[in-house]
């Protein structure tokens, strides 16, 4: 039928139009602006230090699903795993007055925070787990950020095949009370699929922000020039940098 063809044609050109428009510079700017409006409204509504909901032990999911890398698979990581991560170091570098290289023992000796929170994947699913570790703020206070520092970049030991995993956050989330460097999940050392021996918890953002297999924290003034320049492995592949949406 003719009318049907017209409708199918209209639909197809609508879709084609959408993908054409999406690739233009003004549209990309508009997308980025919309992302920032969401972030600003969220931070205005609840305040910069609004806490993510914390749950009771009864709410903890039966097991904690892993996504992305489930084992970095390198010889060096396997050696660390075999030695119980005794020689694992967390480097704190970049725009800091006192660069640090922390062992797991040193990280465990810092004041600890334990929180039962919901992990929300960008795909749509959620799992609840209990995380323990020092607040990032404690470590940043030791390293003393320089005034130019605007972002923290998390360096990871895993590679998804076409690039090393990394992530970044701004200082609002860096100094948030629930932003911790977790070394325990549900009261036991982090399992390998969940990021052993260290991972970030940035509780007001989606799962891809929660960098696993953490080896370094770097304070920077700008995200330009780091890998794809968008501030994260998935961000370089088109995802939103602000993942609170």
């Amino acid at each position, binding site marked *: 039928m003719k009318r049907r063809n017209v409708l199918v044609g209209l639909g197809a050109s609508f879709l084609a139009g959408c993908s054409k428009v999406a690739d233009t510079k003004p549209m990309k700017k*508009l997308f980025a602006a919309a992302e920032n409006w969401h972030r600003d409204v969220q931070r205005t*509504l609840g305040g910069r230090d609004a806490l993510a909901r914390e749950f009771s032990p009864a709410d903890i999911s039966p097991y904690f699903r892993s996504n992305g890398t489930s084992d970095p698979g390198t010889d060096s990581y396997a050696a660390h795993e075999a030695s119980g991560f005794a020689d694992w170091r967390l480097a704190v570098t970049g725009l800091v007055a006192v660069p640090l290289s922390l062992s797991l023992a040193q990280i465990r000796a810092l004041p600890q925070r334990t929180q039962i929170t*919901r992990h929300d994947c960008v795909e749509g699913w*959620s799992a609840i787990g209990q995380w323990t570790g020092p607040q990032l703020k404690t470590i940043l206070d030791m390293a003393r950020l320089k005034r130019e520092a605007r972002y923290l970049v998390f360096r990871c030991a895993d590679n998804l095949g076409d690039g090393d995993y990394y992530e970044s956050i701004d200082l609002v989330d860096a100094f948030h009370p629930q932003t911790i460097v977790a070394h325990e999940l549900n009261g036991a050392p982090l399992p390998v699929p969940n990021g052993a021996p260290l991972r970030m918890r940035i509780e*007001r953002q989606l799962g891809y922000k929660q960098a696993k297999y953490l080896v370094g924290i770097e304070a920077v003034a700008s995200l330009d020039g780091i890998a794809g320049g968008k501030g994260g492995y998935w961000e370089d592949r*088109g995802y*939103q940098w*602000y993942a*609170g949406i």
Partner: protein
Amino acid sequence: MRKHRLSTRLWHWINLLALAILFMSGLNISNAHPHLYWGQAGFDPKTAWFNVAHFPGWATIPAHYSLADARWWHILFAWVFAIGLLVFMLVALFNGHLRRDIVTRRKEWRWSEMRADIAAHLRLDFHHGDGKYNFLQKVAYGVVLFIFLPLMIASGMAISPGTDAALPWLVDVFGGRQSARSIHFLVAWGLFGFLVIHVVLVLLSGPARQIGDMITGGRSDEAA
């Protein structure tokens, strides 16, 4: 005065564009994890209350699977939709559109009146009597305006982890993040159902005139 005000016409078409983009990018997002749960958490398809079909490319924005790009469209047009609805509601409140044309009168809820309107619809007789819209029309528009559209905004916000921290009560209203996600999905299809009925009724009641009126405003109320 024209049959449809400029503000109503503008919002109608902007809202159609926004909802079309939100719905089709939403179907792309659904393909990322096509399983729905109740409560706060849910990640194992074995515990899902509903396994959603995979939506083909012709129904999604973009036309291939891209969670990242679908989310850009969704995040931008959420603003067009929400601000558009807010402005329309305020204008319609102050210019009397809601009170005059959407709010039902008590006598319209009498069973005899309702039965007569349903019977008229079944006969495909769409004469309105003295008001702009008949009873079933008012109820349908009222449910969409005051229940479905606001529910889409509220449940969409409740899925965002950042909003959860800012407005935890909003998540509680829905009974958890995964419940909010399920409701977001169900109401989206409810709106799709409204669209189908709306378009069918336009086609049955003089589509050229109806669509023309929604673009130009049409002739005066008295003539309608």
